[in-house]
């Protein structure tokens, strides 16, 4: 027998150890598309709420180059406030969403919030005579400080800010990278920090450090990809623009000499006009490609979008003896996406399919439900097909098998599908043809007319 469980909703019961519930809330929040700030606050809350470890307050420092900067301080401002907050956060079944909402509310309150006290605290991690709390981050050591006022190694400004005798410093790091520091105390309950608190706090610190490190790497990667794509694009655009410009320049120079006859003048002007149209085409395609940024998807009817594409005179004009069969299941549910962009994506794919197919061949567009949640549109041709080397590069920017291709068409299709929350799959065989399958998420059911 095989049983399936969702690891994103373990649903811990109240009789289970609260440490498990705490770790569950933290790891679930990392899976959500919340900002790193929101997720770090979830950790702080988990460390301070009654259902978590139960520290009274949690202070967060983050590294910024070689600096350690105070960023947030979470917890009630007084013992009275503590009572209400802990009651709310100790409600059984509370999850990261409630915690994030609560935190956002806490931080956007008036300027006397705790975080305003911690923000002016900045330490250099590279200097020799480090003080606490920076020492803990720099040496990657957890420090439990007691009788703080008698301890000369503590920065006096920090001591004035925190105002307690006992606190715990938890460094946040991953590999060799110092990511930050969390400081925990029990300012209101005065409960001494015990060894089990330290163990759990260290686990939370490890998770937070690794999460911050992963986020850092992820952001770096996105930045590098963006730069690489920009470089590629610059090279590509240069090529697309320079060829027509060379032609236009050369034939214009000829026009400007005196030794040119009427017939040649006209020929040159026609060439120049053609090249200008080409430049215009590059600009139009590029603009369309750069514009795709669909965030809002709406339910729409795929069949009417497809009919609009297939019956468009622009497409049918190019139809050199190739038939396009449209076969869409009756009562197909609406799907989610931007109908204009999806229509343009279909136009791209069907035009490609027609180009790949020899006269007498056929292009078939089929549509139907894949299952309850997905609708699939298949665009199949009986054309020349693609070898795996071409198929693998199909969605790379500026990759084209056509002489004058921009290599943006299929990338555009993919971006539209990604933005619709759908996906695209390709099968192809040389000599047999290609099959593109587009998966759309089902939207709401069709309205009364269906």
């Amino acid at each position, binding site marked *: 027998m095989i049983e399936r469980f969702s690891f994103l909703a373990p649903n811990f019961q109240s009789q289970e150890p609260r440490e498990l519930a705490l770790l569950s809330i933290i790891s679930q929040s990392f899976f959500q598309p919340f900002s790193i700030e929101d997720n770090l606050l979830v950790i702080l809350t988990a460390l301070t709420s009654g259902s978590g470890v139960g520290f009274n307050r949690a202070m967060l420092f983050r590294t910024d180059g070689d600096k350690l900067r105070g960023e947030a301080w979470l917890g009630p401002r007084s013992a009275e406030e503590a009572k209400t907050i802990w009651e709310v956060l100790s409600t059984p079944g509370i999850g990261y969403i409630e915690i994030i909402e609560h935190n956002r509310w806490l931080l956007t309150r008036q300027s006397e919030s705790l975080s305003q006290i911690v923000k002016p605290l900045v330490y250099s991690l590279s200097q020799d005579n480090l003080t606490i709390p920076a020492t803990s981050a720099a040496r990657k050591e957890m420090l439990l400080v007691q009788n703080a006022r008698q301890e000369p190694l503590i920065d006096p400004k920090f001591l004035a800010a925190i105002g307690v005798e006992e606190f715990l410093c938890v460094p946040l790091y991953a590999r060799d990278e110092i990511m930050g520091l969390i400081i925990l105390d029990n300012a209101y309950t005065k409960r001494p920090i015990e060894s089990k608190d330290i163990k759990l706090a260290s686990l939370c610190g490890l998770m937070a450090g690794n999460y911050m490190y992963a986020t850092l790497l992820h952001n770096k990667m996105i930045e590098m990809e963006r730069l690489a794509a920009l470089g590629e694009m610059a*090279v590509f655009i*240069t*090529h697309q*623009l*320079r*060829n027509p*410009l*060379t*032609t*236009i*320049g*050369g*034939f*214009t*120079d*000829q026009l400007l000499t005196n030794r040119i006859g009427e017939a040649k003048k006209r020929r040159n002007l026609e*060439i120049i006009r*053609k*090249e200008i149209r080409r430049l215009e085409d590059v600009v139009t395609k590029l603009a369309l490609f750069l514009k795709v940024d669909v965030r809002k998807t709406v339910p729409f009817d795929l069949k009417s979008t497809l009919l609009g594409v297939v019956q468009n005179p622009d497409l049918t004009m190019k139809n050199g003896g190739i038939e396009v069969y449209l076969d869409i299941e009756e009562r197909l549910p609406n799907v989610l996406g931007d109908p204009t962009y999806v229509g343009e994506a279909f136009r791209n794919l069907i035009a490609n399919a027609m180009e790949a197919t020899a006269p007498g061949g056929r292009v078939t567009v089929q549509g139907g439900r894949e299952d309850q949640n997905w609708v699939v549109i298949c665009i199949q041709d009986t054309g020349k097909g693609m070898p795996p080397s071409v198929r693998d590069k199909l969605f790379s920017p500026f990759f084209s098998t056509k*002489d004058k291709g921009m290599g943006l068409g299929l990338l555009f299709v993919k971006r539209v599908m990604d933005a619709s929350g759908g996906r695209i799959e390709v099968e192809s065989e040389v000599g047999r043809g290609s099959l593109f399958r587009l998966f759309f998420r089902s939207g709401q059911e069709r309205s009364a007319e269906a």
Partner: protein
Amino acid sequence: MKRILIVEDEDALCLLYKEELTQEGYAVTTAGNAEEALSALKREPFDLIVTDIRMPGRDGVELITEIMGLRKDIPIIINTAYQSYKQDFMTWAADAYVVKSSSLVELKSKIKEILDR
């Protein structure tokens, strides 16, 4: 009369180069791709080859490699829209690298310089 082989996949540019270089007093043959260029090279002698890099089918890099094996004595000018490849090519392949521009002055002067050597 010096003989030049132009390898360029854009028809309009082939026409322009042929007219302009013929005007300068050269005998010009054009080829639209690497295959055409190689068969022209086997058919007749040339004093200079001017070639693009990015072309459909076999591209200019493969062409240059093949020509180097076939006719080592013919000087080559690379004429391309890509500025960024210059360093790569000057070290091993070409006698000159001219980036395509709306003026043919640089290309013409490089051709003259090499053929007058």
